[in-house]
């Protein structure tokens, strides 16, 4: 597998804020890669460095082997970016917008491909409509179309589903997944953890400009216990001492992290022995959210140097 995107010790400072504190990542061709992190973690700054919108203070980035600074023309030809903000040029129709964007990338007579993208994004009927007249969801899809006019092998989606309704989100993911299956490398930043879990093969988590976790989605999920058991006892009884040490309390609920379902039986037996009456009991599968919260808490103050 060759490298689609190489990010090497990239640093960026905005006044006193250290947005990126030496980020290194390698993303292979054909990967579906997730970039997660709380607001202000540096996700968008990192993507902007890759796209040439922000100039890094130190380090280097390349797209398909082309440095984004010294060889920017070749790098940008291979990169399609869907920006986070819902931006559009109010002077033009959808088709004009896409033709102009094609021209910027040096492509004439791109209408066959434009028609194909429009069909895939369910925009065919809006092709001649002015951008101003489109709904937010449609504008979002035009942004995706604009990022694809030059058939880039690497596609970056910066929170593409923020504020997008469920139906459109599903349709968008179907399309992006198909692009990925066709061999495109996809990089996704998102706040919806279940989205990253469902789509991404590998995930990097950013916090305060540092990569705090980097692994396959499967390994990250395996790193947290299999299930979480949540129970409430009737009459606010205390837990039997044998169990108290294993549980954490939150809002009158006791929370147990289980490595497997076979731990449930001994737990219930201990409760019976202590004459505890269960009021409510819930069992949930651990998901990326648990991983995320765990990583964000554990990496706490280790990287406070940037402030």
């Amino acid at each position, binding site marked *: 597998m060759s490298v689609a995107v190489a990010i090497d010790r990239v640093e960026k400072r905005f006044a006193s804020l250290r947005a990126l504190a030496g980020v290194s990542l390698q993303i292979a061709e054909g990967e579906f890669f997730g970039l997660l992190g709380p607001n202000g973690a540096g996700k968008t700054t990192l993507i902007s460095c890759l796209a040439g919108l922000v100039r890094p203070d130190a380090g280097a980035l390349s797209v398909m082997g082309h440095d984004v600074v010294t060889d920017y023309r070749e790098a940008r030809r291979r990169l399609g970016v869907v920006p986070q903000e819902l931006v559009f*040029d109010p002077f*033009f129709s959808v088709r004009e917008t896409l033709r102009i964007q094609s021209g*910027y990338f040096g492509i004439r007579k791109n209408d066959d491909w434009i028609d194909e993208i429009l069909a895939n994004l369910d925009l065919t009927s809006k092709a001649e409509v002015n951008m101003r007249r489109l709904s937010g969801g449609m504008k979002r899809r035009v942004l995706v179309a604009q990022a694809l006019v030059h058939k880039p092998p690497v596609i970056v989606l910066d929170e593409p589903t923020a504020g997008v309704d469920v139906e459109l989100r599903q349709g968008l993911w179907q399309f992006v997944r198909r692009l990925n299956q066709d061999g495109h490398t996809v990089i996704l930043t998102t706040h919806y953890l279940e989205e990253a879990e469902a789509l991404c093969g590998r995930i990097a988590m950013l916090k305060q400009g540092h990569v705090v976790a980097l692994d396959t989605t499967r390994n990250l999920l395996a790193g947290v216990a299999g299930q979480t058991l949540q129970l409430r006892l009737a009459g606010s009884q205390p837990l039997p001492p044998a169990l108290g040490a294993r549980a954490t309390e939150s809002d009158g609920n006791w929370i147990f992290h289980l490595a497997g379902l076979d731990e449930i039986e001994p737990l219930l037996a201990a409760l019976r022995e202590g004459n505890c009456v269960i009021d409510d009991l819930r069992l949930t599968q651990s998901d990326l959210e648990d991983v995320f919260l765990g990583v964000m808490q554990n990496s706490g103050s280790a990287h406070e140097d940037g402030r």
Partner: protein
Amino acid sequence: MSRGFVTLLYKEVLRFWKVSFQTVGAPVLTALLYLMIFSHVLESHVQVHGVPYGAFLIPGLVIMSALQNAFANSSSSLIQSKVTGSLVFVLLPPISYVEFFLAYVVAAMLRGLMVGVGILAVTLWFAPLTFVAPLWILLFITLGGGIMGTLGMIAGIWADKFDQLAGFQNFLIMPLTMLSGVFYSIHSLPEFWQLVSRFNPVFYMIDGFRFGFFGVSDVAPEISLTVVMASFLAVSAATLVLLRSGYKLRS
């Protein structure tokens, strides 16, 4: 020149052409109003360089409007796409900063030319105009539009808000273009203001442009051309340095 440059230029021209009623039609009407009012009042009393006032005024109005509109074109396009965020569509593609510069400046020149031609077309029958040296006419309006288009780029890149740009336009560009001999020959000014006018590059654009029509001017057209070319080179160099550094565009 790359396809990217050609497309950006095309897009910039299309942008103002789609609203040409406002970007070309309106300045033509404004110039026509100036001409009707001033020539009505002054035609029978005033001659400048031996030319009837109405005829004297037309070339001045043509280039003043061309200059103002060239400035308006690049500056408003840039501030609009900065404020709305759509500038990102131009920053993501493989377009060099030189191509970026040329596309905006040439589009501004073309808007200036179109406004100028429009004004000439509607004012021609008001006064007897001569075209003694058409090449000079074309040269001064093109270079003048280039200078103002470039200044418009600087203003558009620098301004973060529309009112900052309006300030630049109303307090710098307007007085600079209005007080540069559009309505008078600077020889009619007190000596001090004559001297001040000679430090205003816009004066040379207008004076040289008018020479192309009548063959007479306040200063020799070669001097005007030298000043205008030097000004163009200077503002272009400054803008290219700005663009190269990524100032306010690529942080």
